[in-house]
C-alpha cells in the first residue's frame, strides 16, 4: 500500500510539471497583460516599458516559465499583472479565496453526497417506480436549472422568512451576501446563529446541482451491481436482503461515485463560480473569472496549480478508497 502510494505520487509529479508547462504556454499565448494599460488615454510608451520590465514580461516564455516554476516551489507565486490589481501577490489572493471557497463548499458537498447516494440507491432498488421517475425528473430539472435562478428564488424566500421574524420582533437571521465582514461574533451562541444564518441559503443552492449528479450516478452504478453475478450469488446463498444490498451491492456501487467526487472536488475547489457570484462570496470562482476577463497570467497559473494539485491528491485518495470498497482490488 505504502509503495503504491509512493509510486502514484512519483507519477503525479511529471504530470503536474508537464501540465503546468502546457498551461503556462496556453495562458501566455492568450493575450497581452498590458493591453488594458496600452489602451488607456494618456499612457506613455515609457510607462508601459517600465511596467513590463518590472513584471518581467520582457523575457522569452521559457525563461518566464522557469522563473515562475522555481518561484512557485519556493512559495513566491508572483504578483498580479492585471491593471488595477496593484501587483497583489498571487499567493495572498489564492489563499484567501481558497479559504472562502472551502468554507462554503465542503459542507454543501458532503450533504449532497449523502443525500445523492441515498436517493440513488433507493431509485435503483425501485427502478421504474413512481419514486424513481419523480427523482429522475427532479434531478434533471435541478441539473438544467440555472443555479443563479435557484439562488434568486431561495434568497427571495429567505428575505420573506426574515420579514416574518421581524414581525415577531426577532432579529433578521438569514443573510444573502457573503460572510459577515466583522466575523461571526463574540460568544458561542452568537457565532452559531450567525454562522447558520450565513451558510443556510448558499448551501441549499449549491447542493441542488451536486445532489442531482450524485443521485444519477449512484442510481446507474447501483443498477449495474444489482445485476452482477456476485450479487446474484449472494442472494442465492440466502443472505438477508439488506445485507446483500448494503454489504455487497452498495459497497461496490460506491466506487464510481467516489471517482466522480474526486474529479468533482477539483471543479468545486475551483469555485462554485455561479453560487459564489450570486451570493457575493468572492472566492476561487470569482478569482478565476476576474483573472480570465482581466487577463492576469500569474494569478491564473497560481489558480491552476492549486486546483490541479487538489485534483491529483483527491484522485489518489479515491484510488485508496477503491481498495477498501472492493475486496478484489489489491494495491501494491
Amino acid at each position, binding site marked *: 500500500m505504502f509503495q503504491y502510494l509512493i509510486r502514484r505520487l512519483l*507519477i503525479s509529479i511529471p*504530470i*503536474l510539471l*508537464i*501540465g503546468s508547462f*502546457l*498551461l503556462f504556454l*496556453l*495562458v501566455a*499565448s*492568450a*493575450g497581452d497583460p498590458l493591453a488594458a494599460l496600452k489602451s488607456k488615454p494618456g499612457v506613455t510608451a515609457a510607462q508601459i516599458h517600465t511596467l513590463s520590465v518590472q513584471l518581467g514580461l520582457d523575457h522569452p516564455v521559457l525563461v518566464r516559465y522557469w522563473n515562475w516554476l522555481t518561484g512557485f516551489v519556493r512559495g513566491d507565486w508572483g504578483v498580479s499583472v492585471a491593471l488595477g490589481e496593484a501587483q497583489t501577490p498571487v499567493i495572498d489572493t489564492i489563499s484567501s479565496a481558497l479559504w472562502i471557497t472551502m468554507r462554503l463548499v465542503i459542507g454543501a458537498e458532503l450533504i449532497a453526497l449523502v443525500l445523492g447516494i441515498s436517493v440513488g440507491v433507493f431509485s435503483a*432498488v425501485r*427502478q*421504474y*417506480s413512481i419514486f424513481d*421517475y419523480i427523482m*429522475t*425528473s427532479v434531478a*434533471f*430539472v435541478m*441539473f*438544467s*436549472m*440555472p443555479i*443563479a*435562478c435557484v439562488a*434568486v*428564488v431561495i434568497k*427571495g424566500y429567505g428575505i420573506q422568512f426574515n420579514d416574518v421574524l421581524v414581525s415577531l420582533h426577532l432579529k433578521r437571521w438569514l443573510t444573502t451576501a457573503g460572510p459577515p465582514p466583522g466575523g461571526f461574533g463574540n460568544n458561542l451562541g452568537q457565532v452559531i446563529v450567525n454562522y447558520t444564518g450565513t451558510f443556510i441559503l448558499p448551501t441549499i443552492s449549491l447542493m441542488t446541482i451536486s445532489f442531482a449528479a450524485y443521485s444519477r450516478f449512484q442510481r446507474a452504478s447501483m*443498477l449495474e451491481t*444489482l*445485476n452482477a453475478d456476485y450479487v446474484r450469488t449472494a*442472494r442465492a446463498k440466502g443472505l438477508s*436482503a*439488506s445485507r*446483500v*444490498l448494503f454489504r455487497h451491492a452498495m459497497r461496490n456501487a460506491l466506487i464510481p461515485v467516489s471517482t466522480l467526487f474526486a*474529479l468533482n472536488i*477539483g*471543479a468545486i475547489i*475551483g469555485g462554485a*463560480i*455561479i453560487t459564489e*457570484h450570486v451570493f457575493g462570496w468572492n472566492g476561487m470562482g470569482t478569482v*478565476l*473569472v476576474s483573472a*480570465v*476577463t482581466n*487577463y492576469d497570467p500569474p494569478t*491564473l497559473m497560481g*489558480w*491552476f496549480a492549486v*486546483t*490541479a494539485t487538489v*485534483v*491529483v491528491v483527491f*484522485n489518489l485518495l479515491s484510488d485508496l478508497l477503491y481498495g477498501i470498497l472492493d475486496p478484489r482490488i489489491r494495491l501494491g
Partner: protein
Amino acid sequence: MANVTQSTAVGTAAAVRSEFDAKARSQSSIIFGRFVRHRAAMISLGLLLLLVLAAFLVPPLLPYNYQDTSSGGFLKPGGGHLLGTDQLGRDTLAQLLRGTQFSLAIAFTVAISSTVVGVVIGAVAGYLKGFLDNALMRLVDLFLIVPQIALAAILVHAWSSTWWVVSIVLALFNWMSIARITRGEALSLSAREFIEASRAAGAGTWHIVFKHLIPNMVGTITVNATLSVSTAVLTEAALSFIGLGVQLPDTSLGLIVNDNYTQVLLRPWLFWGPFLAIVLISMTISFIGDGLRDAFDPRQTKVRA
C-alpha cells in the same frame, strides 16, 4: 427485495423468449425492438424530434425574424409576438427557436467530436497496451487535472465566442471519460478469441480497431455519446452565465436564460420558454440514453409496469 429478484427473473425470461422467437433476428433488430418497447425513451425521442423540427421549420413562418428590432422593447405576449419581445424589441419566440438551434448544434458537435476522439484514443490504448497505453492514459490524466470550465473560459476568451469555437473547446475537454471507458472495454475485448484470431490472420492494428473493436463497443459508445449531449448543453449554459460562453450575434439557450432569469417574477414568459427548452433537451436525451443502455444490455431489461 423479493420483487427485484422476481422481476429480474421475469425479465431474463422475457429476453430469452424473444431471442428464441420463430423468426431468426439479427442482433441489431433485437436491440431496436427492446429500445422501441422502452416507453420513456420513445416518448422522449418523439419530443426531441418535435423540438428539433420546431427549431428549424417554425422560424420562417413567424411574422418577425430574430433580427427585427422594429417593435417596442419588452412587449407583453400577444398580437404578433406570441412570447413578447426582449429589450431591443426582438421577438422572443424567434430568439428562443434560434437559441434552440444553436444549443442543439453545439450539443451535437461536442457529443460527436468528443466521442470520436475519445473512442479512438481509448480503443487504441486498450488494444495496444504497454507504452502507448500508458502514455495515452497519462494524457487523459493531464487533461483531467484542471477543471474543464476554467480552461474553456480561457480559450473562449482568447479566441472568440462564436458557437463553433465554444463547441470545439467543450469537446476538447470532454473526451476523457469516454476514452477511459472505451479503454477498459477494449482491454477486455482484445483478450477475446475473435480478436486474437484476426490478429493471427495478419490484420493490422487499424483494421482490428475499426472493424472489430469499435463495432463491438457500440452500446457503451452510444450511451456515453447521448450523455455527453446533455452535459454539453448544460456546460455551455454555465459558461454563458459567467459571460464566457457563446455571445451575440450567435446565441444559445443558456445565454437567453441567463439574460432573463431575474425576470422570473416580473416577466415570467421571458424565462420559462428557454428554461423549459433546456430541461426538455437534457431530459429527453438522458431518457433516450437510458433506453439505449437497456436495449444494448440484456441483463438490464426489466419488465416495466
